[in-house]
């Protein structure tokens, strides 16, 4: 027990001294939230969108009244289409509508490709009502949208946040082995440790416990920052949250072990872990929804553990529903991966020939 305590203290001290790891674990998730939260926080919602309007000819007043009925839009009128183009280019307005008495033209800046589908949806809604209004008709059918499940109020940031947490957990677990331990092996620090009475399992246990502590601290700080700065409301189910974080951390360390075992040089493990984590970050639906990707990338995504870690954390934080059976099965598989591979890591620590 004394041995484990000493190793644990040493692990935490080493981690606290490693500026790069500290930055990656604590600062990166916060930076991601601050930057992406500000850049994309309002994505997909009609609220506060700025519409530029050029109206001429017959039915101009009808169009103005339809736009006013849509609500949630800040509208600015321009005299000529060229003025509207300049305003859209300068981002004084988000998109524009030009009515010349016969044609209703939606004006979009193609460089805002990630937001244009939302603008065009608003424009379609206006066009549909206007088409009826100029014939003196009101809409006959109310299309009511009902959001089911716990994520009814989830906006872009609320959906992304559990993914950012999952990526933090993955990085911490993966690089604890394919980075920290492999670097100790590379620098022959393990050679010194294995000639002491230390049992390799105690070192593995110290790394696991220290990383779990770091991961909990990091994810809770990130959650608190998102809640305070961006008023993100999450309904965290703490039992599920703890289960997900533990399973994902241990599972990621199992993945790190698998990487350490397949590379010839311990120093290559970090590079391979970097490639793997970056690939997973992009194709697992953390920042970009899997649904917008082509079919073959969606198939690759389905094989990525990070996707399941993120889904489990979305469920644990009340962002998305899933069946409890699927949630526990996901965690059991991740935990099983770690539990099966960590004893192999113990043997890796004392194996001299793979230096």
């Amino acid at each position: 027990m004394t041995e484990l305590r000493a190793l644990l203290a040493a692990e935490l001290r080493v981690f606290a001294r490693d500026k790069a790891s500290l930055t990656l674990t604590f600062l990166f998730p916060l930076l991601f939230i601050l930057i992406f939260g500000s850049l994309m926080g309002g994505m997909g919602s009609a609220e506060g969108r700025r519409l530029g309007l050029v109206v001429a000819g017959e039915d101009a007043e009808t169009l103005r009244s339809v736009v006013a009925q849509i609500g949630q839009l800040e509208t600015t009128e321009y005299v000529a289409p060229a003025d509207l183009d300049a305003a859209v280019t300068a981002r004084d307005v988000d998109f524009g509508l030009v009515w010349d008495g016969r044609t209703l033209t939606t004006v979009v800046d193609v460089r805002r490709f990630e937001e244009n589908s939302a603008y065009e949806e608003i424009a379609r809604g206006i066009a549909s009502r206007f088409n009826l209004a100029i014939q003196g008709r009101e809409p006959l059918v109310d299309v009511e949208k009902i959001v089911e499940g716990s994520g009814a109020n989830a906006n872009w940031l609320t959906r992304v946040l559990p993914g950012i947490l999952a990526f933090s957990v993955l990085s911490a677990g993966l690089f604890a082995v394919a980075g920290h331990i492999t670097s100790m092996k590379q620098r022959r620090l393990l050679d010194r440790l294995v000639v002491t009475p230390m049992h390799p399992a105690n070192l593995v246990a110290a790394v696991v416990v220290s990383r779990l502590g770091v991961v909990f601290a990091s994810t809770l700080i990130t959650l608190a920052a998102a809640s305070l700065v961006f008023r993100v409301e999450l309904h965290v189910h703490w039992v599920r949250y703890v289960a997900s974080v533990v399973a994902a951390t241990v599972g990621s360390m199992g993945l790190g072990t698998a990487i350490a075992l397949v590379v010839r040089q311990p120093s290559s493990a970090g590079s391979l872990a970097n490639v793997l984590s970056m690939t997973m970050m992009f194709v697992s639906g953390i920042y970009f929804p899997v649904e917008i990707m082509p079919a073959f990338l969606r198939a690759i995504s389905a094989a990525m553990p990070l996707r399941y870690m993120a889904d489990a954390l979305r469920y644990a934080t009340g962002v998305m529903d899933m069946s409890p059976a699927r949630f526990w099965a996901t965690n059991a598989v991740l935990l099983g991966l770690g539990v099966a591979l960590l004893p192999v890591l113990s043997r890796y620590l004392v194996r001299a020939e793979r230096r």
Partner: protein
Amino acid sequence: MSATLAIARAQVAVTLRERITLFWFLVFPLFLLALMTLIFSNVGEDGGDMTFEITLVNLDRPSPGSADFSAGIVEALRHLGEARAGGEDPLFALHVPGEGVEPHAYLDEELAALRVGTRAAVVVIPQGFSENAARAAFSSRETVSSKLSIHTSGGRTSSDLAASILDQVFATVDREILTRLGLFDASRSVVLARREIGTQGREFRYVDFLLPGVVLMGFLTAGLFSVPGTILFGREQRILRTYWVTPLDVPRYFAGFALGHAALCALQFGCVSLLGRFAFGARVDLLQPVPLLYLVLAAATSLAIGFLIAAVARTGNAGMAIANIINMPMMFLGGLFFPIGELPPALRAAMLVNPVTYLADGLRASTGAEAGVLPPIATVAVPLAWIALCLGVAVFRLRLDEKR
């Protein structure tokens, strides 16, 4: 001259020999270009090549002889459940209650499936839909309305995309009903059009937007990580001290370093451009005089920032931490991968002092791929100001180092 070339050669060799540096410097930009282009190749096409699991529960049972408006909706959704042109999978996999199945019980089951993500959306046409729609057509809206429900699953993008497609389908329902009742004058129908701006008259493709961004990202990464890494670890390992006892002086050291950095940037630019052009069909031409000048300016700016980090950091690890911290805000607030929209004042200020913002805008505008947002003079002046500032501080600190 030979000393300058030797420093340049050493800079290139050190970068290419180190696996981690090589990964971030060469492999990562190629990887990012490929991945982002593939991911965003579907953007703008609703649903892309996806098939959405949609449930339709039609509770409307119009009396015999009266108009059946729900049948039109059912038909439209069935049509979307058929294979698309070119043999592609259908947009919708449509689920409807089977013969003899109690529709309300079926609806409950399907809503449960929707909540756990097995369905993307559930459409409910309520009882009396056709009757209410016909009544609404002939009376005032205040007294009669007909409802149609789209149930979606919270927190799921597939559900949002499906709802957006369903919205487009249902946007024409009113018109269809009025037309069938002879109450819609098609000759007065609004003609819809779409006009794109911001491309200088050329078709917009994401890869043409991304390619200049990835090239600049590569230059920035090389400047932020490789330059301070070489200098600071060289300082820690006392390699710099050995330089200063030779006839090599600070200006020639800088010149050699700059030459090596330029060679690395050229290599990186070549690889990224070739991949973009031949693998993803990028048409943006960066090999024109003005874009090339912007690329030289970008390489010089990244080099200068690298020197600044090397000058202010005490150790190699501290330098890498600083580089890590400023790298991400510079990339994302510089609009390298996505255009930047509205920002809160603090981030807007950060964006406006970020040299990458100006380089990206100037480079893209100079290729003709899109219209620039910033004044052209600023896209040159701001990076030049950064170079002057960074080099001033770096030379000052290195001279101190030389005197010690």
